[in-house]
């Protein structure tokens, strides 16, 4: 009677599936380079006037946020960060930090966070605008291919079943229980919503707020000023979005690390992602 038993025994050997197309992989890594350089050169540009305002103009005496060095009555100068009138001592990091030679200097963000490291607005602008173009061209290729080849619809739009179970998915995430087997073939609903909001929300708004700071763009498209409430508001939103993207990247990298760093990295390099075939699926 042995031939009536199932031939396929329970298997837990991983199966490699093709997860990321070559366009997704290349544009992903170009995006990593662009966002890193855009962030650091952006902080360099911000350092030329490390204060933020709302509206069209700068109310120099009442910035919403400012990073400055302040000389107390006695003792060395301190780096003071002011947010809506609340003062924080951020000496060493914000407002006052050491340069490459170890000397304390008045600087918004410290030398290790900016590109170039030393104070150079002209240099920061060179890097920022070159990589802004690369970012836009790269993002356009990704979007065009993603829409035409069905990647956005197939892989990013959450299904109705996924949306219904969003609470369960969130709970599983909090317990670090990640999908296995068949469920691991597609992105989970939290991943999909995070990627969609970055691709169609944060990144396009990053570009638009950046363009709103351009006087020539404001001549060509004055609606940009209405959309963001003025040039200085656009600059402030650009800054907030930049740090929101940093937060996204931190969570993204954390999830990559805790949900199988080798498997995740391999899938974004070779395209192949390993899933564990479950007992049910094998029988």
């Amino acid at each position: 009677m042995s031939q009536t038993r199932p031939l396929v025994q329970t298997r837990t050997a991983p199966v490699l599936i093709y997860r990321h197309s070559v366009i997704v992989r290349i544009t992903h890594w170009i995006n990593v380079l662009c966002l890193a350089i855009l962030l650091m050169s952006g902080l360099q540009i911000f350092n030329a006037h490390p204060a933020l305002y709302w509206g069209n103009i700068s109310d120099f005496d009442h910035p919403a946020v400012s990073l400055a060095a302040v000389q107390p009555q006695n003792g060395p100068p301190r780096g003071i960060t002011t947010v809506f009138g609340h003062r924080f001592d951020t000496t060493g990091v914000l407002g006052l930090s050491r340069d490459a030679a170890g000397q304390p200097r008045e600087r918004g963000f410290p030398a290790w966070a900016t590109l170039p490291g030393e104070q150079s607005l002209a240099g920061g602008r060179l890097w920022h605008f070159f990589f802004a173009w690369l970012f836009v061209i790269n993002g356009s290729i990704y979007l065009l291919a993603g829409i035409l080849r069905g990647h956005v619809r197939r892989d990013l739009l959450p299904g109705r079943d996924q949306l219904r179970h969003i609470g369960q998915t969130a709970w599983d995430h909090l317990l670090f229980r990640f999908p296995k087997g068949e469920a691991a073939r597609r992105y989970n609903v939290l991943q999909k919503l995070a990627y969609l909001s970055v691709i169609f929300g944060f990144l396009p708004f990053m570009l638009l707020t950046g363009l709103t700071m351009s006087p020539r763009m404001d001549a060509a498209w004055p609606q940009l000023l209405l959309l963001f409430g003025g040039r200085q508001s656009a600059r402030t939103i650009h800054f907030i979005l930049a740090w929101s993207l940093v937060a996204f990247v931190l969570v993204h990298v954390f999830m990559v690390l805790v949900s199988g760093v080798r498997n995740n990295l391999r899938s974004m390099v070779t395209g192949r992602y390993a899933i564990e075939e479950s007992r049910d699926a094998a029988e």
Partner: protein
Amino acid sequence: MPPNDLHRRTLLGIGTLLLGGCDRLAEDPAVQRVLASAEGLTRRVQRLLGGASVLAPEYTEADVSPVFKANGTLDPDDDDYQDMAAKHFTDWRLEVVGLVERPLRLSLDDLRAMPPRTQITRHDCVEGWSCIGKWKGAVLGDVLRQAEPRAGARYVVFRCADPMDNGNPDSRYYESIGMDEAFHPQTILAYDMNDGPLPVAHGAPLRVRVERQLGYKMAKYLMRIELVDSFADIGSGNGGYWEDQGYAWYAGI
């Protein structure tokens, strides 16, 4: 060493290499040229959007900044300039020379006699701040038409009174714009600011307004306008004082 620690150290090492590498790269002239190539792309694309003649947004009296920040030179370190200022610029003349059929020498009264243009516009400094001010002046295009530019004129160079390097007269501020920007209706030679004569800190007696570009294009303390076919032989050859320090000639962004 546990694998995680190894990863961490490797990443830290790569990060340090990248950071140091970036700074060395940033100083390499070839890299600078590649990075600067984006400037031409930005200029061409921005020119296409909305066309060459789009107007910068204009604001209302209520939007004018209570305090308009003065930047750069605040009081030129130059004896000739100080003499002219003491006489309320009655001796001052604006020269229009170079590739023109009729070189001009204009007094402030000559400029005030021309049809004025008044505009309330936003001034965007390359550093990131903005102020709104009300400017009144002669339209640069009208001045240039009087001088009759020759066919070969491609750039309008603004020569200023303020030495940038501790009173060194060879280091005076200068700027340049293309002919399209020079004949734009909002490009004016401003003698009034916020309903009064242009203050010394803002460039008395005359500053140029180039409303679709950043503040450093809007030269103060104007003395001479030169029409040229190339600015390669002026200063370090990049078209302006700040351009010679590495800033972009096209300052529309």
